[in-house]
């Protein structure tokens, strides 16, 4: 705590007492935490005396400061142009006065009092002596005056000039005692907290005690003076008697004063004796050297200093100890001041005629001294302001890890109650540069007279922090920083508002969906609007500071909400409901139409003699999708049993496997379409006699059905049978024979074949599949196509211009797969467009989607080119495609182009017609059926 250098340390101790009593208190606490800051040496125990910190304090506070005092006195007198003798005398006087006075103060009153009166008294009381060149107001003179007055000497023994200096000395003495008392009292933490009645009581007690003491002293002196007069008159050794009397009085007084607080009469006597001895020694020395003129001054000064130190301190300490014992230190201080001052005043009043003037003068000294801690800061304020300003500028230019802030007077002058303007700015600057230092400083100042600056700085820092949140993420975290402190600040309510808003933003951002985020942040925006309105109306001093912040937050949140909205909009893509390439099942909403075909199938099936049906249509016209959806389209009595002949059935290597796979597909299908659990059939059961067992199983199924129920065995991709037969594992006759038997003898089981081949293409099968009735599946009806384009699913977000829908229908010729292909591309295309245009499709969009549709549906078109037409047919298609949209070519021209003979050309044309790639228009003219397919062949 104290610097290691003794010189600095002694200055620091003085600084503590004058400016930073809390540091003094902390130092005293290191000696003993229970020790009062205004402790006197008389209060100490043995343990205290063993503490090095105490010795350091005493040595520095008394020893070193006495030297400082002497030096200051020399400097001052030199500046005041005093005589050399005067300077020497004053120096020799100041040193013991400061040292002895200080120690006596520490012993009996308080160490703080001792140190401060040692310094102040040492300086102030020595200066008049230096100026006068002799010891003013010495004990001898005082008593002599008293004697003279009492014995009625008619002429005054003192000159006017000396009289003035003597008065000044008295004034300074009273001032010093009052100042010392007030500083001593300021070291106690409760200095400002005593209630008024207690202070008043203390003052009354102090005054009473001091009056008693003054009366006693004056009375005693009068008695003593009378005795001395008798002695003088009798011619007995005046000096000897006088000095002995003085020494004796001092010794006794010290013993008595020491005895009062300690109740140790031995130590009191010892101290009294030692004091008397010391004084006697110096008196002897002074008297011995008196005759040797060159060495006369130092002992004279020393003696005077010691004697006056005793005189002043005893006069203070005697009433102090009494009053302090009766009441408290404050009463002691008052008693001490009035006691010591009262004696001087009493004597002075005896000398002076103008008693009122004198009384006022002395009272002014008391008041000035006692109020030192109040007026000193006022006196220092301009200088402190200048110092602080210089410090601030130095800090501004500084680029270091440390700060000069601790040199600011706010941190070392605890008595300065006047606002140190600029401190708040300084604090903000330091906190921004060194957050830890700044935070600690603000915390320290919030319990000091400069707490306004701490508050202002904190508010400004909060404002700056709030201002620094430039995006919603940081705003959402703001409440975490605002959570601590700021409770009693004038902006608490405002900060709570910001904190709440930050929490709301945090909660808003935590929402998973953008929509909910927007909802939450919209509410935040409204709350910020409310806050802004409140700030506009408010007359609060900080409203102006926080208004732009709220406005900035509002803007940030609004920008985010807008961006979120835009992002949502831009992400708000139209979902693509189209399913390309794979057959639709009953679960897909997108399956439209075909009610005419299903109605026809239903009609045919209701006929008991219903022949096998063939669902014939070109590839990708939706045969399988229709079969998958028959469960939905047909009445519940008809149970569709779907078997994909390109599926596991085709993989069979024997009849058992073939029939087992068919049976599995039938079981699955019955369950799927009608929640019907057909009797199981295991592979093992089929091994021995597969056809018989299968037939028996069909019997079991029929028996399990209701009377009205009919089974519809749908065999998809029936042409795959040919491949199966070609593999050689299965015999055509056996398999087809089984189907013929089924057709002929099981009226409750109907057969529906499906494929892109007519039965005529499998001539030899005709005898087995008797009288096959073909159900043609081709393009969708216009209404169905329109539904697929405009309302493929419920709440489809894309709307079509009627001309655009029409264009799709024209281009695709209502081919279901091609509508899906093209419409899927249109959706993809629209999703790439701006949100404004996204949800409305026009003819241009349809046209723009065509190239992509051709590209992405390449397998569809390539299948036609590669697998569905002959080379000649391909050439004809390409030729026809070149003619343009809707162009027709005559039969002759086409045959001519094919470079084939008439019959062969005819065959090629017929094949293309059969494949539903071209159609006949008018007389002998042909054109492409589907524009989109034409475009592929260009």
């Amino acid at each position, binding site marked *: 705590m104290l610097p290691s250098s003794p010189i600095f340390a002694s200055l620091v101790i003085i600084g503590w007492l004058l400016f930073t009593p809390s540091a003094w208190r902390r130092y005293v606490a290191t000696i003993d935490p229970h020790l009062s800051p205004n402790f006197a040496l008389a209060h100490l125990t043995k343990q205290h005396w063993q503490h090095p910190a105490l010795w350091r304090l005493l040595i520095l506070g008394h020893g070193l400061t006495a030297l400082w005092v002497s030096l200051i006195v020399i400097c001052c007198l030199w500046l005041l142009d005093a005589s050399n003798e005067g300077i020497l005398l004053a120096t020799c006087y100041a040193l013991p006065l400061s040292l002895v006075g200080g120690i006596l103060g520490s012993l009996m009153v308080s160490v703080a009092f001792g140190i401060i009166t040692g310094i102040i008294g040492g300086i102030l009381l020595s200066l008049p002596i230096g100026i006068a060149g002799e010891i003013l107001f010495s004990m001898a003179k005082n008593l002599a005056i008293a004697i003279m007055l009492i014995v009625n000497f008619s002429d005054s023994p003192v000159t006017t000039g000396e009289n003035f200096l003597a008065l000044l000395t008295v004034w300074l003495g009273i001032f010093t005692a009052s100042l010392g008392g007030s500083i001593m009292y300021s070291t106690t933490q409760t200095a400002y907290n005593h209630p008024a009645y207690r202070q008043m009581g203390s003052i009354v007690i102090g005054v009473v005690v001091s009056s008693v003491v003054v009366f006693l002293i004056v009375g005693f002196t009068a008695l003593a003076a009378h005795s001395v007069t008798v002695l003088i008159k009798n011619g007995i050794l005046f000096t000897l008697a006088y000095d002995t009397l003085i020494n004796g009085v001092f010794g006794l007084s010290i013993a008595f004063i020491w005895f009062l607080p300690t109740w140790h009469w031995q130590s009191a006597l010892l101290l009294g004796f030692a004091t008397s001895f010391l004084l006697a020694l110096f008196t002897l020395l002074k008297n011995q050297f008196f005759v040797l003129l060159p060495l006369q001054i130092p002992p004279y000064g020393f003696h005077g200093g010691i004697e006056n130190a005793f005189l002043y301190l005893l006069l203070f300490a005697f009433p102090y100890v009494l009053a302090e014992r009766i009441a408290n230190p404050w009463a002691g201080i008052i008693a001490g001041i009035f006691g010591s001052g009262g004696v001087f005043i009493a004597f002075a009043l005896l000398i002076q005629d103008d008693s009122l003037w004198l009384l006022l003068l002395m009272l002014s000294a008391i008041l000035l001294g006692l109020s030192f801690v109040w007026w000193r800061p006022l006196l220092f304020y301009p200088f402190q302001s200048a110092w602080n300003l210089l410090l601030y500028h130095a800090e501004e230019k500084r680029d270091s890890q440390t700060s000069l802030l601790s040199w600011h007077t706010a941190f070392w002058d605890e008595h300065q109650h006047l606002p140190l303007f600029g401190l708040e700015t300084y604090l903000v600057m330091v906190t921004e540069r060194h957050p830890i230092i700044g935070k600690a400083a603000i915390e320290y100042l919030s319990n000091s007279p400069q707490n306004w600056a701490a508050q202002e700085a904190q508010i400004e820092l909060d404002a700056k922090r709030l201002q620094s949140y430039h995006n919603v993420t940081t705003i959402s975290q703001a409440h975490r920083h605002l959570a601590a402190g700021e409770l009693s600040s004038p902006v608490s309510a405002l900060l709570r508002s910001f904190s709440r808003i930050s929490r709301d933003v945090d909660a808003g951002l935590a929402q998973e969906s953008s929509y909910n985020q927007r909802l939450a942040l919209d509410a935040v925006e409204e709350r910020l609007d409310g806050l802004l309105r409140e700030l506009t109306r408010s007359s609060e001093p900080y409203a102006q500071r926080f208004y732009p912040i709220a406005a900035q937050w509002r803007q940030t949140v609004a920008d985010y909400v807008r961006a979120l909205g835009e992002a949502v909009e831009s992400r708000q893509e139209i979902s693509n409901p189209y399913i390309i390439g794979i057959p639709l099942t009953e679960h897909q909403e997108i399956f439209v139409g075909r009610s005419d075909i299903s109605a026809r199938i239903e009609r045919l099936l209701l006929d008991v003699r219903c022949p096998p049906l063939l669902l014939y249509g070109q590839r990708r016209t939706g045969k399988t999708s229709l079969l998958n959806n028959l469960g939905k389209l047909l009445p519940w009595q008809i149970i569709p049993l779907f078997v994909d002949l390109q*599926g596991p059935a*085709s993989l069979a290597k024997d009849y058992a*496997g073939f029939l087992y796979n068919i049976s599995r597909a039938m079981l699955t299908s019955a369950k799927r379409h009608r929640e019907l659990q057909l009797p199981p059939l295991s592979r093992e059961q089929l091994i021995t006699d597969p056809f018989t067992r299968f037939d028996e199983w069909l019997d079991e199924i029929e028996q399990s059905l209701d009377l009205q129920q009919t089974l519809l065995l749908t065999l998809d991709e029936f042409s795959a049978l040919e491949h199966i037969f070609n593999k050689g594992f299965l015999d055509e006759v056996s398999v087809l024979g089984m189907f013929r038997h089924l057709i002929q003898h099981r009226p409750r089981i109907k057969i529906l074949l499906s494929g892109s081949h007519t039965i005529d293409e499998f001539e030899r099968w005709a005898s087995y599949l008797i009288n096959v009735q073909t159900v043609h599946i081709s393009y969708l009806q216009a209404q169905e196509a329109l539904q697929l384009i405009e309302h493929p699913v419920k709440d489809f977000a894309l709307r079509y211009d009627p001309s655009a829908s029409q264009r799709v229908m024209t281009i695709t010729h209502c081919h279901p797969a091609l509508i899906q292909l093209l419409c899927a591309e249109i959706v993809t295309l629209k999703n790439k467009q701006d949100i404004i245009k996204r949800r409305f499709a026009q003819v241009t969009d349809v046209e723009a989607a065509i190239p992509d549709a051709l590209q*992405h549906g390449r397998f569809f078109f390539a*299948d036609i080119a590669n697998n569905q037409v002959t080379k000649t047919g391909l050439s004809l298609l390409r030729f026809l495609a070149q003619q343009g949209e809707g162009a027709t070519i005559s039969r002759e021209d086409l045959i001519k182009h094919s470079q084939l003979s008439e019959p062969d050309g005819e065959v090629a044309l017929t094949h293309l017609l059969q494949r539903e790639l071209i159609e006949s228009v008018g007389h002998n003219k042909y054109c492409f059926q589907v524009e989109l397919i034409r475009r592929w062949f260009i």
Partner: protein
Amino acid sequence: MVNDEFSLPLERDEVLRCAYHLNLTATECENLLLAAGLASDNEAEPMMLTQSNLPISLNTWHSSPFVIGPPITEPHQFFGREYILKRIFDVWKYTPLQHIAIVGFKRSGKTSLLHYLRRIIDTPAEQLRPKQRNNWLSPGYQWVFVDFQDPRMGYQESLLRHILIELDMPVPEPCDLVSFMEIIDNYLEIPTLVLLDEISAGLASPDLDEQFWWGMRSLGSHHAGGKIGFLLTAHQAPEEMILDDNKPSPFFNIFGHVLYLGPLTESETLSLIASSPIPFGQSDIDWIMNQSGQWPALLQILCHARLTALEEGKTDETWKTEALRRMNPYRYLLENSQNE
């Protein structure tokens, strides 16, 4: 009900797979293993589950930023293809899963794309480049990668076994197509994407016959309730592949989406170039873009050459000569794209 005769499963994996499908707890699983006469081994299991058969190394994070030769398997090293990725994932967002064909020249980045597809969704953001998107699909898809250039994939049995093992499903004995489809029918619940790399090699395999492809088609259209999606890559145009006389026509018919892998876009190219740890000069960037025709494979070669030269402190232009020399075998990419 239960015969005295029963046989214990031979394969520990089978028991574990059963335990998985029965949703058994760890203790129950252990008991099942013991009942099957197999020693329980708590540590072996997680290892088996986490091991991948595919050559993916997680240690390549700090490897060269430019990869020449092998396909890119680390998502953070994959650049571009935003449009194609969007189209693919848009299709796979919904069920039934639709089938996609990716057509591109050799070295156009088809295999890298497949690796990226199957890894990106489950790769955490910290293993990706900043702003690299990985939320195309919600997690929960399973992926099977079939490389037809691997000779084992040319045989039905090993191919189907590979798929079932990848899907963590029971493997029937023998593992034929019918049993395979039965297993898929019964067990497949998680949306599954089967990535068939270099389909032409599969088509050329005699063991993968017409019926096999019919089966695959059937799987893709009727079975598995739309939970299985195929993506194939081919370097041939569809019209060159699908011939009825040739085997797989019906299989190809289920591929309603054909996407072409071309060069990268300009911004994609620039972001690939910008991934170099040592930035390239503008003239170098222009030269690389120009010479590569923005084909990723060529970009990798040129960028690698430039980076190596910079790392070695070479200031001359020899790296260009070297890079062009290394690029020579793939010049067909540039020629073909010019023809297009």
